[in-house]
């Protein structure tokens, strides 16, 4: 068991890491809540079509790109992708420049008929605001990295919370909530109970959130090392003025990786393509391999396959950590559970803040002694029950 000295250290770690990160983690929990249902909300708002899937038949993708370009003649095609949960659609993403990071316009096409289903500016709408707050606090990459540091503090706060949970529970049975005594005691017990029961989930979502904060640097690094090596002979050459057929490029990639499906194609000028290639990223078909991408580079002038290779381990780690953060991999029941656990985390954060506020003037040594005194009411019950359990007299009466 912890001594008074080590308890004090862990207690201070728990207190200060929590105090620094709580406001930001609360923001992340609140904005994260609607984001769990982002696709469902977009669908309700009419911003997201769901054409049925019809495997084995695909409309001409060159035609989709032409339609999109005709409607936004001053913009550039960034990528063409197939949303993971909507294999019946292809989406053409436009950008203000060839190397744009953000999409300026999206065109949704039916993958079977090639029909334009919907076009919209993804930089508009309430979900866009929520997304920008959650991912980068409207401050670009520095905002994302800052939230990543807050995430690290949150993880430290959880770990130290688990350690200080022990001394608090020395004489209380698991799950005890002393609700008929001081409100502070009730909230202390609830904070301990809700925190310790959700610790597995919260640690996973917290750690994967930190990994996600490194997504852009990870892709930039991948591009600068392995992908750059694949396109080295074309380095420094300008982006060609005319492109070979996208439709044929995707067919070539499919032929090269017959067990995989195309997930997205980055266009020349983009980080994941280089100046002279279509970057066709292929994925598997199981819930797990659906998130792993294998790049197949197709020469944008000749339409021929240049190179392909597997993702490096660090991109795999990033892609595997994403579903564990989003909760989007087990249907609506999992999303609802994700939301409930998110709400419970909000209660843990709020009660933690409250406990700090009402006790902020109590010296820490007094607090350690307080634990002893506060337990007295309950330990009589606990010990009598233990005796009964040991002697076999307990159970339902």
């Amino acid at each position, binding site marked *: 068991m912890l001594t008074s000295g080590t308890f004090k250290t862990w207690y201070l770690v728990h207190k200060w890491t929590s105090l620094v990160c709580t406001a930001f983690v609360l923001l992340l929990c609140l904005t994260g809540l609607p984001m769990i249902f982002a696709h469902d909300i977009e669908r309700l708002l009419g911003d997201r079509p769901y054409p049925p899937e019809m495997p084995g038949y695909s409309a001409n993708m060159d035609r989709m790109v032409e339609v999109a370009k005709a409607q936004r003649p001053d913009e550039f095609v960034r990528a063409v992708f197939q949303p993971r949960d909507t294999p019946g659609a292809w989406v053409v993403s436009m950008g203000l420049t060839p190397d744009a990071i953000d999409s300026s316009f999206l065109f949704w096409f039916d993958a079977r008929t090639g029909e334009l289903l919907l076009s919209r500016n993804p930089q508009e709408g309430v979900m866009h605001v929520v997304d920008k707050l959650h991912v980068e606090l409207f401050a670009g990459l520095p905002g994302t990295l800052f939230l990543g540091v807050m995430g690290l503090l949150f993880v430290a706060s959880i770990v130290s919370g688990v350690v200080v949970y022990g001394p608090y529970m020395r004489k209380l049975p698991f799950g005890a909530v002393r609700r008929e005594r001081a409100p502070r005691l009730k909230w202390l017990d609830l904070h301990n109970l809700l925190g310790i029961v959700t610790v*597995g989930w919260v640690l996973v979502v917290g750690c994967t959130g930190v990994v996600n904060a490194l997504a852009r640097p990870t892709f930039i690094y991948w591009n600068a090392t392995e992908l750059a090596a694949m396109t080295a002979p074309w380095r420094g050459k300008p982006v060609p003025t005319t492109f070979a057929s996208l439709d044929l490029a995707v067919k070539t990639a499919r032929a090269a990786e017959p067990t995989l499906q195309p997930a997205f194609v980055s266009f020349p000028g983009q980080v994941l393509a280089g100046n002279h290639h279509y970057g066709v990223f292929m994925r598997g078909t199981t819930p797990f391999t659906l998130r792993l991408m294998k790049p197949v580079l197709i020469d944008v002038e000749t339409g021929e396959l240049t190179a392909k290779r597997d993702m490096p381990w660090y991109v795999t780690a990033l892609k595997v950590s994403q579903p564990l953060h989003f909760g989007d991999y087990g249907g609506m029941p999992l999303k609802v559970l994700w939301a409930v656990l998110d709400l419970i985390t909000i209660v843990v954060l709020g009660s933690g803040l409250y406990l700090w506020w009402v006790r902020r003037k109590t010296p820490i040594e007094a607090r350690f002694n307080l634990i002893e005194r506060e337990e007295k009411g309950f*330990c009589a019950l606990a010990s009598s029950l233990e005796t009964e359990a040991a002697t076999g007299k307990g159970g339902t009466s």
Partner: protein
Amino acid sequence: MSASLSLERIYGAPLALAVLNGIGLISALLADGFWDGVSWIALSTTVAVIAWFALRKEIKPTEREDASLNLT
């Protein structure tokens, strides 16, 4: 007065629930259908445990049911 609970008594139930959390988080990632169901049940258990302890009435010393004893 009664002795402190052992570390196993304090952390036993939380550890079991954390393992259950882990199973719930990973199973849905492996495959659809059955494994999604495993995930839903595992994570629902966590929520149910919280609901049980957080929403029940305070145990009086006269009552003979202590869920922590049933759990172990």
